[in-house]
């Protein structure tokens, strides 16, 4: 049990996806790779969870999805942020920041 816990904390996956897509539209693998890179490998995304989350966010109206032709003439599903999604990102980011700073304060007080 020495392996670090790399599961995405329940509920933060949405935030990560929204943030990643706020830069530019991406397909599923691109999102997973970007999250891994930026988090320097802390978060490893399970594709099953990712694709299901994309479906859910799309249903909620925060993402748009469309099939595009890639450079090697292959169909790929690209996701982009909608206006509602952008608002949702702001909301989730600010809640996350509140929580993170609260936890940080608690940890400091403990020490």
């Amino acid at each position: 049990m020495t392996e670090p816990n790399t599961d995405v904390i329940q509920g933060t996956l949405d935030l990560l996806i929204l943030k990643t897509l706020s830069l530019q539209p991406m397909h599923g693998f691109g999102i997973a790779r970007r999250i891994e890179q930026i988090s320097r490998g802390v978060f490893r995304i399970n594709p099953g969870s990712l694709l299901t989350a994309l479906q859910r966010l799309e249903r909620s109206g925060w993402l748009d999805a469309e099939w595009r032709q890639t450079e090697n003439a292959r169909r790929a599903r690209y996701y982009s942020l909608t206006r509602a999604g952008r608002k949702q990102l702001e909301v989730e980011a600010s809640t996350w920041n509140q929580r993170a700073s609260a936890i940080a304060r608690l940890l400091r007080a403990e020490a």
Partner: protein
Amino acid sequence: MSLWRQVARGMRGLARRADVDHDVDDEVQHYLEQATAAHVARGLGPDAARRAALIEVGNPTVVRERVRDYGWENVAAATVGDLRVALRRLRTHPGFAVVAVLTLALGIGAATAIFGAVNPILFEPLAYPHADRVVMVSDTRGDGSRLETAYGTYLEIAQRSRSFAAIAATDAWRPAMSGTGEPERLVGQQVSASYFRALGIPPATGRDFVDTDDQPGAAKVAVLSAGLVARRFGGDPHIVGRAILLDGDPYTVIGVMPRGFDNVLESSADVWTTLRMNAHATFQSREWGHHQTIVARLRPGVSLDQARHDLDAIARTPVTDFPRPAWASLSSGLLVHALQYDVTSGVRPALLAVLGAVVLLLAIACVNVTNLLLARGAQRREEFAMRVALGAARSRLVRQLLTESLALAACGGIVALGVAAAGVRALVALTPAGVPRARAIGLDGRAFAFAFAITALIGVAVGVTPALRASREALGSGVQRGAGRVAGGHAATRRVLVVAEVALALVLLVGAGLLLRSLDHLFAVAPGFEPAHVLTMQVDAAGHRYDSDSARLQFFTQALDAVRAVPGVASAALTSQLPLSGDIDSYGIVFQNASTNGGDEGAAWRYAVSPGYFATMGIPLRAGRLIDTHDLPGAPEAIVINESFAKRRFPGRAPIGQRVRMGPEIDDTSRSWDYVVGVVGDVKQASLAADEPDAFYVASGQWPWVDNVQSLVIRTRGEPAALIPLVKRAVWSVDKDQPITRVATMSELVSRSAAERRFALVVFEVFAAAALALSAIGLYGVLSGSVAERMREIGVRCALGATRAQILSLVVREGMGLTLIGVAIGLAGAAAATRALATLLFGVSRLDPATYAGVVVLLAGVSAVACWIPAWRAARVDPSITLRAE
């Protein structure tokens, strides 16, 4: 907007399943390709890159399934799939399916039928506005029981009490209608002007009664039921204002009640008129007889208790404005009950007992089906283990199993509707005559909703234990081949359930046994007359031809002579009231020198009879003489009283020759005394169970008036029913226009008088038989399962030299052990539960040892048979075969 998206995307998913699946496949595939490409870019060879990508992504099938599961349309689709699997399973195991569905259908159907009967009678409010404010008021006997009220008492209450927004007196009325079509005797009521206001339902057309309609000598007016207008007047919309002939008098129709008006006090009433009674009548008049039923509506804000206090105060403080005769002194107070309570009080104990019985039956059915499902769960252990190994989540298994049990319950529920429809028909046929609101019995929307709700509830209830257990085991045991050999917790749960079944069945059986013995005891009660070979019917003298006492007396005398001349008639007589027929007619009687006159002068049954009544009924003479042909109008009045009455009033003294005054003449001291001339045996009047035998008999012509409705009693030489047409023709030979009603043999009346108990008994017998069968099936199922699981053990025992007898006793002991535990628990349960039956029992204690012993023997016997079959199968086990099979 997001809701719209949800729906739209879901619909698309359902409509274009293949496209959506293809998209998911494509996306997952693309993901895999990208991952592979990323590894290639890092320098791996194509095969190694692909392998690395697969490790990273995981099983693509699982990923696809996860993505596909998202969305309501997929939940729906999965449920449909589960349902299909469930139904296929039921089809491929028809034996299990039939037993389970029939068991559930029996339980749900019986419960729905009973609900359909009990709910409208006991629980649904009466169909009046603010029905909870409608109450009944009545006078009481010395023992606190209910007594019909005198009109004079009604007037005093109406004017002195402050609790009621409206109060009305009502009296039965059976007018003969003539003039249009065949003469017909109608069921009706004479009521105070405020009757419909007390109920809160005014006529639909025309006007309500007003106070001036209810004065002596007022013009005769009538309100009709919608049913009568449709039946006799072709639904005439202009019936209001027309005159109709009732008992030979013209009545002006002033109103028609709405269709569906539920007149619970007299549910078949078709016509109403006012009482037109005299507010200042003397005590000797009809106004002071006990024959009014009083219904009232509480003022808003006045509670039932406040009304009781109000009436108590009135009863305790007589005022000079309202003089009271001795027989209506209100010394025992007044009764006030909610109308619904009052009209249903007779059937309430039976209906509640039946409701309890059906709950027990339903519980047994559920336990039985749970047991079947558990047994099947054991058989399917390997299937579940396989599914878990293939990646099914526990919640998925539970969902599948619950879907199966719900499907089972739904099938049971559908069949149950048939059972319930048949059950309701049977209940309606069984329902004692005179049960209020019996017409409301049926399967309405509420009954269907009830059936639906318990079906769903049962689906979950019977499914949840087996589902949780099966899924837990599947997770625990894996695909071990040996899992089948572990008897484990399964068997323990099933044993507990069987014990519960036996206990529940025992409670029902004890209930049925006690009711059966009560009915036996009841019919062993001597009614005081000989009912065999006696035919009875009610004869009227209606119309103005019979306005005078002498005309009525002449009609009845002639009719009686004509009946006596009918071949096959051994003897015949007339009486003003007939035992066990529902007639209730009592008058005051005082003795000059009685040791005690009691405080209840209102309460002795009055029989105005023709000579020969005692001989025809078979009522024995104890002392003195009977009423004979010399007791004519004008002769000294001869009174016959019954044995226990005489003993109580004249202990140790001869009652013959005692001076007596009766009925309306009781306070008339100007009259000379009458004399007791004879004493006869006690007769049951109200019911076989009731103990209120005080009665006096007087010759029809010597009572202050001649009753215009009398009952013929005819002792026949052969089968009494065969004489009905001849006797009717004989009466009609005197006057062909007189209605004849309530034709019945005396034996029928005797058995009908126990109708409530018989109703409860039949239901209990049917339910107890079903419970016995279900618990035997449950026991058999558990033992069969246990024998099947222990085949190997039994084989080993045989191989080691156990005899067949030893194997037999091994299994039988197990089964009988369970039965005995169930019996012990059931006995305790029955001892507690039969408290609810107390009012239905007669002549038998609710802890009657004989009944309990008999039930235990019966249950043990049936259990022994259920044990014997699997035991016999176990004893035939061939060790060489079972051991080799492993």
